[in-house]
């Protein structure tokens, strides 16, 4: 179940470098100037004229050389179309450049139909990475990508070696630093992750590294070194909003931990001025507490392209097909990460697609064999698919590796196994024990989830008291609502509406129309709950 996931923190995301390089975190530079770049128009015209006179592949290559200048791409596209129309001989590389100019990029086939333990898309990408590394092994960014696949394949030592090599090749690389820190988090070496960033010479001048240091300090259960400096940087607007986004988000996290929701909102306001996908996902995670309006264009634009944020939103609105789609995309972006697989395995358990869920859980356990949540989901999936002995084996593994937090989940899954064997009394007893343990801990949402799963098990095993158990689950849902329980009960044909924000949203900014001067200005700042988007000043 997804509710058993550890709380989400604003730790650096580890995507493929091809995606990261287009984001501000990769291209941030203290220098903010752009150098003008333009190629010689006369030489370009001459090159085209030469090609028209002698249309060899050599002359075409000379014309394509000008594609470096994006302003010439339209004219190059005209030449390219002409060459294709006349069926002139062109090389494969020329074809690749032409396709890129004509915006006919090859689309990689979607992997949505693939639920094997080994991911063929990963295999293809690894093979390409190997080729690239063969050309130049001293390649920090390619090593970061290679490490991601190594960690997905459970080769943790190799992954660490690749990351350390990347960092030694580029000791000041922000990407290498953040990625290595993320790796340490994955390996539960939180102190090392924090130490790496807190002691690095680049961190004090880099808002992205400061943000990670602050977020990692929380996980490492230590004080952040750069919280005050980060606050000063935000107050003084020491960088563009896009570069301050994660820093403000991390500082908001501190405020939330300290229970200062008002200050957290204010920090999120800065973080959401020009957010990245990580910050949006964090804001959505805390949306019930923050109650801020995330429907403005700046946030919506990012959220639409952020798989994690889309998964969370779809999950909240009980849109399971969209949740599946986005979680698969999220898994493809971060194949080593357990979180997307948590969502997917939970979803497939609820949808009775047990084989898909089992394979994906195995896939996730290769990357992290000690992931308690995945072990719990796997044993639940196995029990549902009738592989009861195997389910018990994984439950034992869960007991060995997990912290005591997972005891009620172990009890509940054992209850399911008992009910599958027809021992309803034993099953009832185990579920009751799990429910009472959640209640005694004050985890009301987990209690609701547990009851929902109990109802699902009762319905599917034709429990004599299934109607009663279902009613209890519905009552519990009425008292403490959770998305997981909503999705399960919805699948059991119960009348469940998506959970709505109880408190009206606060806006991050308002438009002020001054009728006297006939001007429209945007005022940034957290408004009162339910404030209008436009204020007319008379």
């Amino acid at each position, binding site marked *: 179940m997804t509710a058993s996931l550890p709380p989400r923190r604003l730790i650096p995301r580890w995507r493929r470098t091809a995606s990261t390089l287009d984001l501000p975190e990769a291209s941030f530079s203290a220098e903010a100037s752009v150098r003008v770049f333009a190629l*010689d128009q006369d030489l370009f015209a001459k090159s085209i*004229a030469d090609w028209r006179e002698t249309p060899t592949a050599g002359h075409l*290559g000379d014309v394509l050389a000008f594609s470096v200048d994006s302003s010439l791409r339209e004219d190059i596209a005209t030449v390219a179309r002409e060459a294709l129309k006349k069926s002139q*001989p062109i090389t494969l590389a020329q074809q690749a450049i032409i396709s890129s100019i004509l915006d006919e990029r090859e689309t990689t086939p979607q992997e949505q139909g693939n639920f094997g333990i080994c991911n063929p898309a990963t295999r293809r990408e690894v093979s390409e990475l190997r080729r690239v590394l063969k050309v130049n092994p001293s390649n920090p*960014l390619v090593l970061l990508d290679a490490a991601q696949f190594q960690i997905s394949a459970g080769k943790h030592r190799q992954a660490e070696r690749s990351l350390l090599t990347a960092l030694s090749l580029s000791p*000041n690389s922000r990407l290498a630093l953040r990625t290595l820190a993320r790796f340490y988090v994955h390996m539960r070496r939180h102190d090392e992750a924090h130490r790496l960033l807190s002691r690095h010479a680049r961190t004090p001048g880099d808002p992205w590294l400061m943000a990670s240091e602050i977020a990692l300090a929380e996980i490492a259960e230590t004080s952040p070194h750069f919280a005050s400096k980060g606050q000063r940087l935000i107050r003084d607007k020491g960088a563009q909003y896009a570069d301050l986004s994660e820093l403000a988000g991390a500082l908001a996290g501190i405020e939330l931990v300290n229970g200062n929701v008002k200050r957290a909102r204010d920090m999120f306001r800065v973080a959401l001025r020009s957010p990245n996908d990580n910050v949006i996902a964090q804001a959505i995670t805390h949306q019930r507490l923050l109650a801020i309006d995330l429907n403005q264009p700046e946030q919506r634009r990012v959220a639409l392209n952020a798989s994690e944020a889309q998964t969370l939103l779809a999950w909240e609105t009980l849109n399971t097909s969209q949740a599946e789609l986005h979680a698969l995309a999220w898994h493809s972006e971060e194949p080593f990460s357990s979180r997307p697989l948590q969502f997917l395995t939970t979803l497939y358990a609820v949808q009775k697609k047990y084989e898909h869920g089992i394979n994906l859980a195995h896939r996730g356990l290769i990357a992290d064999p000690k992931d308690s949540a995945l072990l719990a989901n796997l044993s639940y999936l196995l029990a549902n698919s009738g592989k009861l002995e195997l389910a018990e084996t994984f439950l034992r593994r869960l007991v060995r590796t997990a912290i005591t937090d997972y005891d009620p989940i172990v009890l509940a899954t054992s209850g399911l196994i008992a009910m599958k064997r027809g021992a309803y009394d034993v099953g009832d007893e185990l579920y009751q024990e799990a429910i009472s343990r959640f209640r005694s801990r004050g985890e009301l949402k987990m209690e609701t989830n547990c009851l929902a799963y109990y109802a699902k098990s009762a319905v599917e095993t034709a429990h004599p008291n299934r109607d009663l158990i279902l009613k209890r689950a519905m009552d519990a849902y009425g008292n403490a609502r959770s998305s997981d329980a909503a999705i399960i009960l919805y699948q059991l044909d119960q009348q469940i509406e998506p959970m709505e924000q109880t408190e009206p949203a606060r806006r991050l900014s308002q438009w002020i129309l001054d009728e006297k001067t006939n001007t429209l200005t945007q005022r940034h700042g957290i408004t009162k709950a339910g404030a209008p988007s436009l204020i007319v000043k008379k």
Partner: protein
Amino acid sequence: MSTVSSPADKLEGVTLASGWEIQKRFVKQAGETGGHFGVCYFAIRGDETAFVKALDFRRAFHEADFITALNQLTSHVLWEKELMEFCRSHGMSRIVRLLDYEDLILPEDGNDQTKKICCLVFEVGKGDLRRHFDLTQAPKKSWRLRVLRDVALALDQLHRRGVAHLDVKPSNVILVGELADRHEAMKLGDLGRSVRKGRSGPFDTALWPGDLTYAPPEKWYGYQSAQWNDERESADAYLLGSLAVYLFSGVPMNALLVNEVADAFRPGIYRGNFDDQLIDVLTQAQAKAIALHVEDQLPVSSKDELLAIITELTNPNPSKRGNRLARAQGMIGIDRYHQKLLRISERVALEERRVNA
């Protein structure tokens, strides 16, 4: 742009004092403007053919800032002429030769000294590399390697005498007729944008005197090094590597490189200097471009050697570009490359003959 009629436009049919009969004028292309001041012709003398560049300095008078234009024109012509003579005097076999240089007044202009034009007569050869890179003719891989070897040798000859070419591109690689050692060879032409070590020239302070289309990537981002090797010879090494990529893929390195670079790091978009994070991005793009578009086109038997050569030559970091061992001694090591390329081209030619037999 100057549109004035000049004696330099009317040389067809004229015979120079050196015996060159000026024939057909090169077709004036849409892109040719008066900014380049020269008019180009074919010329013959007995069995020999040549390329004549006629310059009319008066054209400078029609430019807005004529003093600067005139100064530029005269200094560029003198620079190129001196350099060509320097190359000839040092027996640089793979540099296009300056055959003659003379002034001329057309008969119709009488003895009007103000209408004097300057003619530079160059070796013409059989056209540039672009014309000979014709897929319908399926150029052999050994031929491509010989071209590369010739250009590497040309650069080595220049570098040994403290000259950096800085404008190596397919249109400046000329196929010439018979040389002593074999039937045809490539020569490097257009030294007009070169710089010399220890001699001040018109392009010493320019960020990039050559064609920016082919320039090494550091120049897109405005990087200049104070070290001769890193700034000049290293740039020539990149141009040689880019030519290797062109010979095997049909596209120069820069086009492939930019195609693999994330938008945020492209020239004209990236807000930053030529720093480590940019070098990392370019290094990744370089390796991807070579792995995806060049590797499969290389001759199988010499693939690894050629991959290493191309990767070293096109290294986006100018201070690491070039032969690894030579770099340890503070040099670029073009000499090592032309020797290696000669060996590889002969090996590949032997294999091709064996396959054909």
